[in-house]
């Protein structure tokens, strides 16, 4: 064995790096006095070398490209997505844009629910949301923050069409014309040559696009005309929304569809608010409008959306509901991260969760402590085994290595379930202990469904990840080091501790990082043998991903876990040094 040290400079073969290095050296030696070295064809040497190397580099890139792509798609993109999801909160602003805008001046600290304008905005937002059926999703989202909102929204979605029933019926009965869909369309196009209110149309377009999720196939229609929008402003907005939605989502021409209740109610309110409105129109349109105006029930001018919502459910007067909508109205939120740290983002601000609902911090601490314990157990159990393997004759070592790898050949679930059988109170291990008289029959040990169970089972499962790097590092430590140490006067222990052990540290480092990082994200085993006291944060993440469907919170928990791991990695680098990690050779 000749272990001549080989630094990069000692490898004198024709590697690209060495070629560059040599060119540098040549350039340095020739100095500035006689310009760059020239190749045979007269181009500067460095340039022709670079050209020659570029092909090599391109080929190298082509070789790694599939993997690079794979990693980008399956690793980098999901992590980026997770980080985004943990703060993303578009849904409130997209579903209730007018309501969120109307709440601008309102704060929870006002001590009372917002004024009529907010209820008015809520009506139009909610109507569209109910048509698009997005209100239940939003209700579900806000329900994470304040329970009860989900059912409140579902109910509102059903009830919103009934608001202003009296006004709608009055208009309907006032003239036959209102039953004609085309009449409505004509009304909105009244006036001069298509002088459309483009701002209004653009707004409505933007909303319809968010709801339908695709670019609108809607031709450049011209409602509402500027005249109609001036005379009947609410109606114009409501009709445009209806028309765009009908066209883009239902793909029906609006002139063939009955307008929504919201359009009818808007017309009633416009006519009540502006007695001169019919005069902007002429002929049959003016007649129908006048008839409708005359038929309006008394009190229409003072129509209150607030009363309508409160009648539907008293909770619409609740400060908490409005506070929640306000608190989560922004496009990004710190709410998920606060929840993940056992705080809650209330309408009043940030507050700690009640003592008995604080689970995540405990879980994070437990995950870290138990992962460290598992790593430590793996070192303690794995080190002697690796040492033995590294010092046995190759043939014996290979046989034993198969035993070490054997666990990999059985399914994780089978192994974990086997531990359940072994560790339970009536299980094999307790039976043996009772039989040996170490524990009494009444005092059988609880080895499963708690932290002990998780540590035992996970140490077993992760042990090979410790032994393999340890073994391959130990294999490279020549026995002559130990002999040298002893010949220099060291006892067996000193020789081991001062000479052998320091050289095996890179193996311990690699093994520990592997085991620790695997442990910290493990969830099948803790789920099966951990009970409630032995589950990890990852079990909670899995729960939020697949059961509660609170992906934002799951993403926040995952992000915190990621940061924790990176922080520990950094700490490890500071203490041990990351170049002190070897997987062999």
């Amino acid at each position: 064995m000749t272990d001549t040290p080989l630094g990069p400079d000692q490898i004198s073969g024709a590697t690209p790096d060495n070629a560059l290095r040599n060119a540098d050296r040549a350039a340095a030696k020739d100095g500035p006095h006689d310009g760059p070295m020239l190749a045979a064809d007269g181009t500067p040497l460095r340039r022709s070398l670079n050209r020659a190397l570029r092909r090599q580099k391109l080929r190298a890139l082509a070789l790694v490209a599939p993997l690079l792509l794979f990693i980008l798609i399956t690793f980098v993109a999901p992590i980026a997505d997770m980080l985004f999801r943990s703060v993303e909160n578009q849904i409130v602003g997209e579903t209730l844009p007018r309501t969120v805008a109307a709440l601008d001046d309102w704060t929870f600290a006002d001590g009372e629910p917002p004024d009529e304008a907010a209820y008015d905005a809520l009506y139009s937002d909610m109507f569209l949301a109910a048509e698009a059926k997005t209100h239940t999703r939003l209700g579900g989202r806000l329900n994470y923050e304040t329970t009860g909102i989900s059912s409140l929204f579902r109910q509102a979605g059903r009830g919103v069409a009934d608001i202003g029933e009296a006004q709608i019926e009055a208009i309907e009965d006032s003239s036959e014309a209102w039953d004609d869909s085309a009449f409505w369309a004509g009304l909105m196009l009244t006036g001069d040559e298509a002088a459309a209110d483009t701002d209004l149309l653009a707004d409505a377009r933007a909303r319809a696009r968010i709801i339908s999720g695709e670019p609108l196939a809607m031709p450049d229609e011209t409602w509402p005309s500027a005249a109609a929008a001036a005379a009947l402003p609410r109606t114009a907005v409501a009709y445009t929304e209806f028309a765009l939605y009908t066209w883009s989502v239902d793909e029906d021409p609006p002139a063939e569809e009955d307008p929504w209740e919201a359009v009818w109610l808007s017309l009633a309110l416009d006519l009540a608010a502006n007695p001169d409105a019919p005069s902007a129109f002429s002929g049959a349109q003016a007649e129908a409008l006048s008839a409708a105006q005359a038929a309006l029930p008394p009190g229409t001018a003072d129509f209150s959306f607030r009363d309508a919502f409160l009648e539907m459910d008293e909770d619409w007067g609740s400060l908490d509901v409005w506070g929640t909508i306000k608190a989560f109205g922004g496009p990004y939120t710190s709410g998920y991260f606060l929840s993940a740290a056992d705080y809650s983002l209330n309408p009043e601000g940030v507050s700690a969760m009640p003592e008995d609902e604080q689970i995540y911090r405990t879980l994070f601490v437990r995950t870290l402590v138990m992962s460290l314990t598992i790593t430590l157990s793996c070192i303690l159990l794995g080190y002697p085994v690796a040492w033995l393997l590294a010092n046995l004759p190759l043939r014996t070592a290979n046989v034993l290595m198969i035993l070490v790898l054997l666990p990999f050949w059985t399914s994780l679930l089978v192994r974990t379930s086997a531990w359940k059988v072994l560790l339970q109170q009536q299980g094999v291990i307790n039976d043996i202990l009772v039989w040996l008289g170490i524990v009494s029959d009444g005092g059988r040990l609880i080895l499963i469904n708690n932290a002990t169970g998780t540590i035992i089972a996970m140490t077993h499962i992760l042990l090979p990840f410790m032994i393999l790097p340890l073994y391959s590092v130990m294999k490279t430590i020549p026995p002559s080091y130990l002999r040298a140490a002893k010949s220099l006067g060291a006892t067996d222990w000193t020789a081991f501790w001062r000479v052998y052990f320091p050289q095996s540290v890179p193996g311990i480092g690699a093994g520990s990082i592997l085991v620790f990082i695997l442990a910290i994200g493990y969830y099948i085993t803790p789920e099966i043998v951990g009970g409630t006291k032995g589950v990890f944060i990852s079990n909670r993440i899995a729960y939020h991903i697949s059961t509660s469907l609170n992906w934002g919170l799951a993403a926040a928990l995952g992000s915190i876990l990621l940061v924790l791991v990176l922080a520990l990695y950094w700490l490890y680098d500071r203490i041990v040094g990351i170049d002190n990690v070897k997987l062999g050779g």
Partner: protein
Amino acid sequence: MTEAASDAFVAFERVQKSYDGETLVVKDLNLAMPKGEFLTMLGPSGSGKTTCLMMLAGFETATHGEIKLEGKPINNIPPHKRGIGMVFQNYALFPHMTVAENLAFPLEVRKIGKSEREEKIKRALDMVQMGHFGGRRPAQLSGGQQQRIALARALVFEPELVLMDEPLGALDKQLRETLQFEITRLAHDLGITVVYVTHDQTEALTMSDRVAVFDDGRIQQLAPPDELYEAPRNSFVAQFIGENNTLEGTLERVEGERCTVRLDSGEVIDAKPVNVGKAGERTKVSIRPERVEFDPELGPDAHTLKAEVREFIYMGDTFRTRLSVAGNDDFIVKTRNRADQVRLTPGQSVTIGWLPQDCRALDA
């Protein structure tokens, strides 16, 4: 071995060693070394040299026999209490320690105070001309420098006995020669006893007080270098040390300092009986290439034989001629490049001759 083993510094007495319980790697080793001797174990690979060294150092136990240090058996003393310095072929410098820390190691485990320690380290480094390298790591040193440090480390705790197992095997020729010289100088200056293992005969001949030629788990001959070359005791040693011509034959007569051998090709020659049996037994006759002359005028005692030139090689200071003599096609003759020396051509017939005392009859 004729020395009184009892007052030797190092003594192997009837030592045997087997690793597998079936074959003996070391068979009946007897060796006694006085204090201050530089003894080299020379032999082909696998002849048991390292095993002997390891038994002396305490890393292997002798299956049979006793090893004594200063008259006391050391079979049951663990290696770290033997106080024997060792230099390994791959240097075995601890890679995670600096040069100075490597040298401090044997002193620390002996609980030597810091100031004394530093003084000794400095002295040891200066001794091998590596005074400025204390802060380096082994990986930052060249092979020769590493070997010097390994030497300094083995000497820093002032052992009386130092073992070296092919310490120069991994170095190039020039460096090897420099270090050979330095090691012998140090050994003599410090008065230490050295057991040196090598498979390189030049190294063995130039460095040692005595050389033990190993083969097949036995010492074939233990003698000073000149004696080993001039008077090999058996045909293995004659073959192994230096260049040698062998002619096989049967003994006809043995009379004191003279014997007659009938070669297999029929010629009868006189030889000096060194290691032979009775008349009628087989023997190998050994003649050094530089003791053979062409067209000899050696006097009445000399022997002459007919030979045919096979190859003539010009080597600068010498000529090597390969001849076919008495059925041996590899008979080499070395002649100095003198002005009057004729250059032979292949196929040419010549007469060669030598003095009977240069022709040694050895075991078959």
